[in-house]
């Protein structure tokens, strides 16, 4: 038996149906791996979602699982799960480029903790997905290896930076994928590709092995075809890791078990600040309809204010670029990656970085270096850290009035490839609804919330308080089950 295709590019495989099919021997793990690797071979030339395919690693895992099945063992939770991994996450012996020329041939010596945990739980790593270079961008057009196409509309961007992961899952080339989210890089591509994408609380998932962009903001989270599978993945990757000193020592609930808990009476905070100027009316209409559906489920709408929202983009781009300029100093041609020779050491650093980094990465390193440089630190970086505290306070106040906060994920629908590349500031401004939660450290999920008249997907974003993933997953699940995809 092979995986059944129902609609030309997708299928119905889920975490639990795969586990069950393997356990009852309706399919072997090797057959499943072969099926997905074939799909990648067929669709990837068009989508460019994968930068590296790792059949050896997928088959090695499949064979281990098939041996265990033959021995009658009880399979682990994610047994046989076809997984795609964003190319900023380290995978031992498997090329990890960060979609940059500077790491074109880099093979990490170790696995990221999230990757290690998923593989231990039975997932099969199919390959590494395309993204914006070093996760910097919102359209996947900043990859050194070409943009990803949105499987929903091939002339449009899949969002970014985790565009390859979102496209891979949306096109059925993987059942789940790991992405990373610094300012919206899971939630926005999730919205653009019409699938759920979850950014956990800062500290919920270990960042060990995540190649750093902005350390106080970077998070790892799943894309899946439904909310339940996202909860399955989170249950495995969440939790304290001694190898990441910022991973929190907090209880990890069983997210799957609590998924179907009632959402009746939940107070839905709707910040008016997220529905103003710049919001595409087609997106607004769908999100309002989505909120209406939540009310039908018994949730209570609470209109509230988050007055510092308008300052979040400026704050975010100062803090993220400052941290990036420091984190990316390590790419100097000495220990790994590209080296462009020069007579002097400093000359080698300069030429290596000049040739190795793409335009957006250079732009952000420049901005961050400027914001941290003598004479400007207080005016830019320190000021931004203070405004960050005010933005976090907005969230704290909102969560006194509401249990969750519901907003549009992005003010715009997926745009056409090339349409926005000339104006970086305009591109940054489109991050307005996602960067707020990034700065505050709270969890957020984007769930599909209908389609516009052009048939383009819209995302509904749900924020919860720190470590409140169970609650936002419950609401997202209830929304999805009630027909949120078609509002």
């Amino acid at each position: 038996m092979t995986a059944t295709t129902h609609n030309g590019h997708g299928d119905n495989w889920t975490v639990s149906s795969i586990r069950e099919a393997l356990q009852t021997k309706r399919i072997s793990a090797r057959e499943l791996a072969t099926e997905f690797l074939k799909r990648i071979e067929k669709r990837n030339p068009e989508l460019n979602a994968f930068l590296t395919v790792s059949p050896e690693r997928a088959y090695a895992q499949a064979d281990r699982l098939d041996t265990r099945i033959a021995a009658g063992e009880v399979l682990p939770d994610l047994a046989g799960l076809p997984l795609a991994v964003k190319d900023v996450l380290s995978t031992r012996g498997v090329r990890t480029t960060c979609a940059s020329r500077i790491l074109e041939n880099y093979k990490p010596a170790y696995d990221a903790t999230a990757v290690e945990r998923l593989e231990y739980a039975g997932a099969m790593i199919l390959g590494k997905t395309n993204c914006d270079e070093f996760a910097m961008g919102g359209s996947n057009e900043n990859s050194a290896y070409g943009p990803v196409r949105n499987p929903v509309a091939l002339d449009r961007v899949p969002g970014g930076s985790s565009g390859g992961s979102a496209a891979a899952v949306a096109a059925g080339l993987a059942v789940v994928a790991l992405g990373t989210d610094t300012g919206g890089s899971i939630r926005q591509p999730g919205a653009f590709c019409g699938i759920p994408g979850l950014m956990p609380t800062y500290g919920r998932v270990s960042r060990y092995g995540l190649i750093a962009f902005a350390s106080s903001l970077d998070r790892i989270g799943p894309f899946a075809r439904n909310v339940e599978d996202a909860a399955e993945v989170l249950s495995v990757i969440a939790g304290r890791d001694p190898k990441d000193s910022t991973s929190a020592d907090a209880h990890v609930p069983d997210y799957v078990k609590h998924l179907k808990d009632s959402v009746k009476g939940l107070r839905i905070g709707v910040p008016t600040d997220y529905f103003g100027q710049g919001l595409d009316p087609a997106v607004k209409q769908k999100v309002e309809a989505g909120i209406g559906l939540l009310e039908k489920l018994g949730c209570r709408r609470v209109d509230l204010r988050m007055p510092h929202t308008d300052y979040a983009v400026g704050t975010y781009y100062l803090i993220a670029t400052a941290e990036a300029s420091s984190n990316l100093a390590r790419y100097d041609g000495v220990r790994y990656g590209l080296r462009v020779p020069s007579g002097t050491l400093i000359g080698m650093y300069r030429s290596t970085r000049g040739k190795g980094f793409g335009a957006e990465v250079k732009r952000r390193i420049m901005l961050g270096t400027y914001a941290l440089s003598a004479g400007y630190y207080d005016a830019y970086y320190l000021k931004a850290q203070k405004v960050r505290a005010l933005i976090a306070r907005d969230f704290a106040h909102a969560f006194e009035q509401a249990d969750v906060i519901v907003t549009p994920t992005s003010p715009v629908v997926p745009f056409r490839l090339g349409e926005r590349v000339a104006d970086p500031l305009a591109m940054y401004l489109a991050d307005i609804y996602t960067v707020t939660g990034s700065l505050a450290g709270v969890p957020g999920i984007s769930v599909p919330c209908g389609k516009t008249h052009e048939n383009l997907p819209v995302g509904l974003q749900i924020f919860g308080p720190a470590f409140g993933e169970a609650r936002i997953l419950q609401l997202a699940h209830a929304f999805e089950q009630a027909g949120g995809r078609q509002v």
Partner: protein
Amino acid sequence: MSARTTFHENHPLAACTMKITREDVARVAELAHLELSEAEFETFSRQLDSILTYVEKLNELNTDGVEPMAQVVPPGDANKEQTGGTPLREDVVEPCAVIGDVLAGAPDPEAPYFRVPKVIER
């Protein structure tokens, strides 16, 4: 830092004066060890200027007495379990047998070292 160049583009911020000069861009590129082409100098000066002009917006806010926020998770207590904080682990050396793998990916290795151009003078 205060050259009064104006935007030559039809940009919403065209009326503003430049915050960043060519010299600033050169200085920052030097600090960041980035070799830039002539075209990049041109584009980055313009783009960084519009971004910096935009972030001036933060100055509308009075932040007197606000503590700067560098981290969102509290440090936690190593002696208590599951406090939601981020306690430091014990400072114990653990074996790390990846030297061969690491050197294998280096541009110019000479085990157990990385070789670089001479650093006697700049």
